Each structure stands twice: as structure tokens, then as C-alpha cells.
């Protein structure tokens, strides 16, 4: 069970409050968590990464354990504290005004 903290606008779209959890089959990876999120909340498809290329949207970032995982390959294993549920995986809208 992976704990995920979504940014406010994606929580609103997914109609959830606070932290969510998703099941990721096998050793959890960055790509696996995103796929699980999109499967559980189909409205999030296309909001974090491209529908077809699966490339991360430029202003979306992925953090965990005080590390920036945004540029990690999608099949990289997530840090052990995220995999064990001790720490959440964060989807973040890049800091910007406007």
C-alpha cells in the first residue's frame, strides 16, 4: 500500500480529501504508482503525464523522502520508506505564480 499526497487541484478532480493510498503490484516503482493512481482515479489520466508518451507534464513534480524523483526513470524502485508505507509519495504542482 503506497501513501500518496496529491496537490489540491487533483484532489478536487478525484473527489478525495487528504492522503490517498494505492496498491501497486510487485516492487513499487514511480511508474507503477502513477499507473495505479490513474487506474483508481481515471480522471487523473493526462493530468500528471501525457496520455500516450507517459512523459511527465513539465510543471508536475514527484517528491518523496525529501528527494526529487521527477527525473527518475519510471521503472526505478521507490525509496524503501515509501514502499513500506512509512513515508508518502508526493505529487506536486511546480511552484509558480499566476
Amino acid at each position: 500500500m503506497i501513501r500518496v499526497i496529491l496537490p489540491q487541484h487533483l484532489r478536487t478532480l478525484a473527489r478525495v480529501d487528504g492522503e490517498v493510498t494505492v496498491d501497486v503490484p510487485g516492487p513499487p516503482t514511480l511508474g507503477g504508482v502513477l499507473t495505479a493512481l490513474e487506474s483508481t482515479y481515471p480522471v487523473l489520466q493526462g493530468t500528471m503525464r501525457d496520455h500516450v508518451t507517459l512523459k511527465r507534464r513539465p510543471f508536475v513534480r514527484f517528491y518523496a523522502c525529501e528527494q526529487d524523483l521527477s527525473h527518475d526513470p519510471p521503472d526505478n524502485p521507490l525509496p524503501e520508506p515509501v514502499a513500506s508505507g512509512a513515508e508518502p509519495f508526493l505529487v506536486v504542482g511546480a511552484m509558480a505564480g499566476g
Partner: protein
Amino acid sequence: MSGVRLLVGTRKGAFILTADGKRQQWDIAGPHFGGWEIYHLKGSPADPNRLYASQTSGWFGQILQRSNDAGKTWETVGNKFVYDGPTGQHLWYDGTPHPWEFKRVWHLEPSLKDPDTVYAGVEDAAMFRTTDGGQNWQELTGLRTHQSAGKWQPGAGGLCLHTILIDPSNPKRLFIAISAAGAFRSEDEGQSWRPINKGLKSNNEIPDPNAEVGHCVHRLAMHRSKPGVLFMQKHWDVMRSDDAGDSWREVSGNLPTDFGFVIDVHAHDPETIYVVPIKSDSEHYPPDGQLRVYRSRTGGEQWEALTNGLPQRDCYVNVLRDAMSVDALDKCGVYFGTTGGQVYASADGGDTWTAAALNLPPVLSVEAQTLP
């Protein structure tokens, strides 16, 4: 008693304004989708309670919303806008080739007859259609793959397909406009297209000012009783066609400036048209700080300034291309929204104006629905 519903898209959400037939007191509901850019909302002519909204964000991309109860509740529908086939290249601002990239939906045009069928005009310019109420979107590839597409170039707002008109006498005939490619017509529901830009002149904007494509058309308008007559607000110049776009002539006449974004037609008089002149292509505000709608009762050439109720000093807002609409009541209501967050309403064809809303986020679009 009949009434009017205004669907207002803004930089930070959607608002729905309602009034009875007098159109003096407006109730404002919203923001819906707060914090998101709402480029356009539009209701189905076949079912006015069926609304569609284009919700976009630089962070999280494109969302499409649908309502079955006039905007009281909304549900997300499909947001997968994928170009069908090789994407090809258009021209970038510097004239070099640039690949097509989907950015957002600018305009939604529901079918005249079927609430589940909607056309979507997108950036980078292409046409999509849904026939299942927005769940799935298919590209009508004939436009993006037109032989001229490699010469299309974005305007400052992007390479956007922002206008879609359906001929009410022949729904297979569509008109669209793209900044900065020009106007196009289809006779087969969007399968194939031809440019309709003969007579447009874009001096100092494109190398050949009379080119077949490359013109920065800001808006097209049509009256349903005369679908062969089209009006155009181009980057510069107000234009008119009496042959469904085969040829155009300038009707800017005595306007103080012929730059602008919006143009619309009176609901009951196909020769009465409205524009909001803007000072220039870089000075996006009204001349002399005076917000004036100009009305022509002669289908162009002769224009009169409409100022009663509009700010006549120190006004430096813009009126964007999808931000004017008319209702079908008698007398015809005219509405427009500004980048300053005001929505102005006239219940008498433009003779007098009141503010229906004063302090919204910058307005991107206004659509009027006439309620029974």
C-alpha cells in the same frame, strides 16, 4: 417568464449569471473549477441544460466537464485529445518548422440537433468531435493535414482554432477560424476543408499580404437566417463575405480603429453587427481609455459608438475573441466580458449598458443562453 443564462469562462474559473427577461438583476453562481482557466463553456442548442466546459491548467493540462442540469452539478468526461496519425509540423514564430503539440481546447461547439455531439477547436490547431457526450474525442484529420498546414503560424495567443460555426440550413457545412492560418470551410461535416481567405490583406504580417493562408483571423460571426453572409474581425480589418467565404471585402468604414477581437450579429437583424475596437495589436485596450461597442445597422461600413453605461475614461481593458454573445429575446440582449473582470449587458440591442458583474477574474469567454 423567459430569461437569460450567461456562461462566463475566466482565467480562474467559470461563472454562471442568470437573469429574468428584464435582464437588469443578475445572480452570479461560481466559481466552478476555481483556479483553472476556463477557455469556453457552451450549452447544447438541443438541450440547454446540457453544458460543456473546457477546463485547463498549465500544470495539469486539459479537463472537459459536462453538466446535465444547467451547471448545478458537473462531471468530468474524456480529456484524451490525441492527434490521429503523424503530427507533422507547422511554422513557429521565427518561421522555422515546429511539431504539432496539443495544448488546450479553445472552443466547444455543440451540434444543433444532438446534445451528445460536440466539435472542439484546439491548440495546436485541429478539430476534434465527440458523439458520446464528451467521453471520447476523435480528430477530424482533414483540417490538420490540409496541404497548407505546414505554412500555418501561431499568433501571439498560440496556434488556436477558436471559432466554429455550423450552418443551420445545412449542418454538414462548417466554418472555422485559426490564428494565424485564416478561415476554412467544410461541406462534409469536417472531413475536408478549403481555405476561404480571398480578399483578406495582412500587410506587414506575412510576406505575401494576399496569401491563401497565414491571416490572423480573430473571430467569425453569422446570422442563422443568412448563413452565407459571414462577418470577420481580423487582426486588423473588419471584413464581410456574401458568398460563404469565397470572397471578402473590408467593411471597417468609420471605426476609430479596426483592430479588435470580438464580432457578433444581432439576433433579429442580420445586418446589425457589433465590434469592440481595440487601439492596436500591442496596445490591447480601447482608444482614448473609452470602452465603446460599435454597432453597424448596415452590415458594416457605417458604425455608431455605443457608450451609455460603459466607462468613458481611464478604461484600459481588453475584450477577448470569445467574450461577446447575444440572446434571442426581444429586444436583443448583447453581452461582453473584459480582461478587467467586468461583464456588461445590454437589454436593448446595445443602446444602454449595465454591469452584470464587476469583479470577476479576467474574462475569456461569454455565451448567452435564452431560456424559455
